[in-house]
Structures are given as C-alpha cells and as structure tokens.
C-alpha cells in the first residue's frame, strides 16, 4: 500500500486530525436549525429533514451490513478484496445510534414532530391512532430502537472484529466461524430492518400501513450501498490507499448488483403501489393521495423515471458497468434519487413539512453526512483497507484474470 502523497496528506490531516468533517457537519446542523426557525413550522421542518438525512446514512450502513453478512453467508470469494470497505461503511452504526437521540429524546418529552401519533390530544380523539396506541407509544418506540441499534452494533462489531483478527495471519477457522454466525445474523438483520422501517418511516403517517414497506426500505438500503461502495473504492484507489487489488471486474460486479437492486427497488415500489391502487381502500390510498398532490406528484413521477427507468436502461450495458466514470456517475445519480425517495416517504406526511423540499433538508443531509463520513474515514485508518489475512483474498484479487 502506498503512503499518502503530500498533496492528500494536508487534506487528511485537516479531515482526520483536526476533526474538520465533524466541525463542518455540526456547523451545517446548526445553520439548518437556525434557518428552520424562520419557517412556518420550525419543528416540523427540522424534524422531518433530520429524519430523512438520518435514514439516508443509516440505509448505507445497513446496506453495508447486509453485504458483509451475505458474503459470509454464501462463502463468496470474489468480494473479499472489497469486503473491508463495506465493513468500514457499516462501522458508523454506533454513531447513528447516538444520532437517533435528536429523534427519540423529543419523543419522550412529548413532541409530536415528526411523529404526530405522539400528540396527546390526537391519540385520544383520533380513532385509528387511539387503537394503535399500545404500539405507537414513545417509551415502547424508544425501547424498540434500542433493540435495533443493539442488534446492529453487535453484528457490526462481531464481523469487523473477526475480520481484523484475520489480518494477523490467514486463519480459515475464523472464516468458518463467521459463516456459522452469518445465518442468524441475517435473520436478526431482516427482522430489525423491517421493524425499523415501520417505526422510523412508516409511522410518520400512523393511519397508513403497508406490510411490504420494510422490504421497500431494504431495497433502498441495497441501492444506496451498491452506489456508495464503488465511490469509496474509487476514492481509496485515487488517494493511493488502495492499489490494483481491486480490478475492473470488482467494479463490474458491483455495477451488476446496483443494476439488479435498482430493478428490485422498482419491483417492490410497484408491488406496493399496485395492490393499494387496485384495492382502492381509502385507509391505504390516503398515503399515495398525499403524494399525488401539488409538488409531490412531480416528485412521484421523478422517482419512477429517475430511480428506475433511467438507471435501468443506463446500467443495462456491460460497457457502462465496466466504464468507471460512467458507473460512478450512475452511482452518484442513484444516491441523489435515494435521498429524494426518502424525502418523498417522510415529508408529505409530516405536518409543517408538506410544502416541499428546502435548504433545511439539504443542510441536514450535509450535516449528518459530515459526521457519518468522519466516522467512516476514522475507521478506515484503524485497519487495512483489504482483509490481508483472509484465505480467499488471492482468489478474489486474481478474480477473472486467471
């Protein structure tokens, strides 16, 4: 591995040693808060924007967790060279647990933003909310979130700890051990992600329900990860921290997965829509109704075209997936669409945030982005960027070249 070049050394020094990213992130969040207080509904606007940004970075880390567990589960060898980057991307899960406090603490204090089911008056007057009160209740909600983050933290720590233990020397027994633990981990992951999506995202509209919603958020997680992974690999290679161990074949395979999960997202999004559209039951259509009004209709159409149709045809060609600039372009575009998707899920249901997207949303994204990427960057200096001790690494590096 190359040493950092002098040019990048200054940047790294600023970002890591002087905590530049953290400072910038907190700065953005403070500005977002200040700007929000000039809005009509400061709390509604700010809480919704924060939730969207929080779920955005959570989705990347959860996607990375899914990827790591999956590689161990199926005993994949092609991905060993890029697995460590995914392990690094799932590392901020602990930080995200802390970052959930700005959502959870106000809830315990009785705030009805962004979750209006917590409104003391409505939970008595509103028939549906009153019936759902045993589940949608602040203390129980916080309790569940603690379970989710607890499970995720355990999974993330376990797999990255054992993976780093292998760096000391090739130990096949650790690979086997991780494979054994990957099946129950995947099960726990599936259940917690499903319910976390219900709690964090679906409950912004407590009247509405969709049993496929957890899968929808998971599809977003996978798209986010397979878009983020090539970008981080590229940055690592460009800065000289990663050499030719990662080849065009790895990018190509990540491109295939990005293509596949883009189609999967479209499939799940349409499955959710068509059943509700066909049954035409008011208690279900109300959610889409809010997203077919005013500016949200435009966003809905944008998602169909931008999150599915364009990337589907754009990523279809092998040439595009093997062309790094083209692949990275689509990856950035899909990350943007994923953010818009989360905005579309949250904002139309939060009182005070229904008017549209604003500067506060962008600032919250930048703010949490600063904190999240600082955590990723710090983590990347804590270990090698490839699992040098994994017995399958030579095979992964040679990959298709042999």
């Amino acid at each position, binding site marked *: 591995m190359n040493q950092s070049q002098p040019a990048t050394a200054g940047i790294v020094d600023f970002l890591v040693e002087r905590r530049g990213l953290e400072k910038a992130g907190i700065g953005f969040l403070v500005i977002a808060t200040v700007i929000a207080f000039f809005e009509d509904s400061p709390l509604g606007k700010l809480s919704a924007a924060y939730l969207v940004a929080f779920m955005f970075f959570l989705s990347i880390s959860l996607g990375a967790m899914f990827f790591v567990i999956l590689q161990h589960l199926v005993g994949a060898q092609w991905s060993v060279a890029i697995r460590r980057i995914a392990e690094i991307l799932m590392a901020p899960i602990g930080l995200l647990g802390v970052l959930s406090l700005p959502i959870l603490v106000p809830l315990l204090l009785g705030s009805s933003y962004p979750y209006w089911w917590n409104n003391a008056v409505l939970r008595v007057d509103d028939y549906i909310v009153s019936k759902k009160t045993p589940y949608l209740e602040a203390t129980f909600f916080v309790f569940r979130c603690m379970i989710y983050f607890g499970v995720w933290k355990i999974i993330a720590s376990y797999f990255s700890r054992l993976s780093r233990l292998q760096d000391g020397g090739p130990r096949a027994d650790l690979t086997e051990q991780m494979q054994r633990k990957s099946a129950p981990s995947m099960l726990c992951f599936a259940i917690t992600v499903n319910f976390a999506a219900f709690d964090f995202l679906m409950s912004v509209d407590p009247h509405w329900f969709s049993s496929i919603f957890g899968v929808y958020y998971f599809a977003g997680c996978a798209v986010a990860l397979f878009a983020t992974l090539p970008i981080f690999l590229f940055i690592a290679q460009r800065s000289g921290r990663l050499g030719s161990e990662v080849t065009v074949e790895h990018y190509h395979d990540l491109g295939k997965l990005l293509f596949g999960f883009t189609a999967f997202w479209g499939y799940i999004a*349409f499955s959710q*829509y*068509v059943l509700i*559209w*066909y049954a*035409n039951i008011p208690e279900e259509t109300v959610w889409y109704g809010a997203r077919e009004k005013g500016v949200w209709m435009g966003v809905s159409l944008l998602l169909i075209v931008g999150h599915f149709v364009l990337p589907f045809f754009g990523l*279809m060609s*092998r040439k595009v997936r093997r062309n790094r600039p083209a692949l990275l372009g689509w990856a950035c575009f899909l990350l943007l669409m994923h953010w818009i998707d989360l905005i579309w899920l949250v904002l139309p249901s939060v009182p005070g945030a229904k008017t549209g997207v604003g500067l506060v949303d962008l600032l919250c994204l930048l703010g949490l982005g600063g904190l999240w990427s600082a955590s990723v960057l710090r983590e990347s200096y804590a270990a090698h960027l490839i699992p040098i001790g994994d017995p399958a690494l030579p095979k992964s590096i040679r990959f*298709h*070249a*042999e």
Partner: protein
Amino acid sequence: MSDETKKEIRVVGVLAQFSGKQTLVKAASEVRSKGFKDVEAYSPFPIHGIDGALGIRPTILPWLVLIAGLGGGVLAMAGQWWTNTVDYPYIISGKPMFSLPANIPVTFEVMILSAASVAFTGMLALNRLPRFGQPLLRNNRFLRVTDDGFFLLVSDDEVAEEKIRQALEEAGATDIEVVTESVEESKIPVPLVYGAVILACFALIPPLMIASARGTTSQKPRLHTWFDMDFQPKLKTQTPSNLFADGRAMRPRIKGTVRRGGLVKDTDTGYTSIPAVGTPGGDSVQEWKVEFPMEVTDSMMDRGRQRFNIQCAVCHGKAGYGNGLATIRALELQQGTWIQPTSLHADHVRQQPVGQIFNSITNGVRKMPAYKDQITPEDRWAIVLYVKALQLSQNATLEDVPADMRETLKASE
C-alpha cells in the same frame, strides 16, 4: 467393410490436445495469428480470455434479448389496450378502461417471457444447436473434454492438413489427429422426419376441430368444460323453494318495515289534493293532476326516455305498444298467466291526465306492479313526460312538426 458399403467421408478438422487452460488460450491466439480462421476451443469449464484468443466477436444475443423484451412489452400493452378499450370495454371496480397500473404485471410477465424465450432459442440458434451428430464425440481422446481435456479444433479446407498439424505442434499441442465424419451421419435420420411430419399432422387436429366448431351452429347446449359460476347453489327469483314454509324463494317484506329509500314523500302523489287524514272520503275531492308539478325541460325528457327504456320498455315495448321483449317471449311460451300490457297508445290511456299515469307507475295497475320503490318520484314524472311525448309521436299530424322541419320529414319519407 467392403468398398460398396463404404460411406462418404468428410474431414471435420484437425483436433489438438493441450495440457491446460493457459496453454490452450496461448495456442488459440498463436494458431489464429498464423491465418487460420475457423478455430474452435473445447474445455471442461469456461475459460476467461478464450473469446479474445479465438477472435469471437461480442455476441448480438443481448441486443436480440433487449429487442424481444421491449417488443413483448409493447405487444402486451397494445393487446391489453385493445381488449380492454376496443374489443370488449368492461368497467372493473370503477377503474378507467385503460389504466397503466393494472396492465403493468401482464406487460412485465410478457416482457420476461419473450426476453427469456429469445435468450434461450437465440443462444441455441447462434450456436447452431441442436445438432444430430457431433463427430468429435466419436473420438475417444476427445471424451476427456468433460474431465481434464483441453482441445483446439482447426478446420480449413483450403490449407493442407500437414500445415495445420505443423502450426498446432508449434503451439505446443500434446496430441494431434484428424477428425472425420460420414456425410450420411450428419443428416437427419429419415424415420425422424416421417415421425415429425405425422406428429405435425396430429397437432393440426385440435385447431381444426375448434375452427370447424366456430364456423357452424349447433342446437345442443355448449360443452361445459369449466363451470365457472354458471351453476350455483342459490335460489333464483320467482322460483319455488322448499326451504321456507310458504314454498317461495323470494321473501315478502316484513310487516312494519320500509325499504331504505322506500318512504312515500309528500310530493309523491298524482293528485292535486288528498283527503285530510282521518276524514275518509272527506271534504276535498281527489282530482288527477293535469299539469306537471315541475318545470318541463329537455334534460327531463332525456332522463324520462332513459328511464322508460330501462324500466318500462321490456314489457311495454320501446314504442309503447305493449310488445316488449318480455311480452314477446311470454306469449311465445304461451304462459297462461301473462297478460299483455296495455298499449300506451290506446284511446283510454291517451286521454289519461298526467297524474293518473304517474299514479299507475307509482302504485301499479292490475297485473302491473308498483314501481314506487324502484323509481324516484322525479324519475316517475320524467317517465310520464316521455310517455306523453310517445303518445303524441304516434298520433301527430304534419302540423305538429315545427314548420322548418316539415320539409326534411317529407323528404325522408
């Protein structure tokens, strides 16, 4: 084997074995660089880089699959559009005739089906498969190709065999031999051809039977392959039933109840005045209304015609002569209980004031049942208006027609 029975022999090519995949790839590009074009490689597993070494251009199969997928999608969408909006428009759960969400699943399935079919058949066709004989499989050495054998086959009719041998030797082949096949064997066996023709003839029978059935009429009831909902364990109206004590399938109204929307309103009367409650046959005299209780408009006439054609025409006929479809059918069946409805153009009906016709619809006359539960008072008045118009239409003179329309009426006669 004597000379007479000796079959015609054709050289397939020169087969060379190599020790491993690297040497195979290397040999392939070497042999090709010497100008041999028809070089084919055989190995126990796919080898990366062999495509380039053999000079195989990227396959057009992905494009075929893309075209098939898009074509299938367009076809499916067009088919659904045509069946749902042109051929058999049918409203399903209040949705528009052509609505995209409902059509996506079928479109998706047809896209996948056509793409997959073309991928499968296209792959076979591009590889010139299936074949009736593979001469290489008669070569004992070649059988190792499914195990650990790596082979190159070079075919070139123009170049002498020796030259090919030499090129392969230089490329590092461990064994070289010429593979031949008999021309006879590469042809499709004759019995197979006959079998295929006979099968094709048999396959024609079902479509011919269907075609002949569609072209002819039959007095027999249709074959019930699937019963769908044609026979249901339910009681139909106007049929006897031994489920209830009175033997009727239909249940009479329970005393003291009113059907939802069945209450008689104050405006729901054909009289100008009604006797005061408690004074039967009292002071005020009942008289039929001679004027409509509301303003008569074109839209009321349209409504009346629509309601008349729905509610009245089945018995009274569309023109009101008492010859509706139900009447025709009942008289054909010679149902003794059926009484032909009165012609609305009979003199005594024509002389009835509007109030009396309204009353007939509301409360029924003789065998005609009351329609006050089925038709709202406003619609009943609209029907009365239309009946009046019908009566006028059948007994009008030329003077009744507006002056400017008379010429066109004469001309059309």
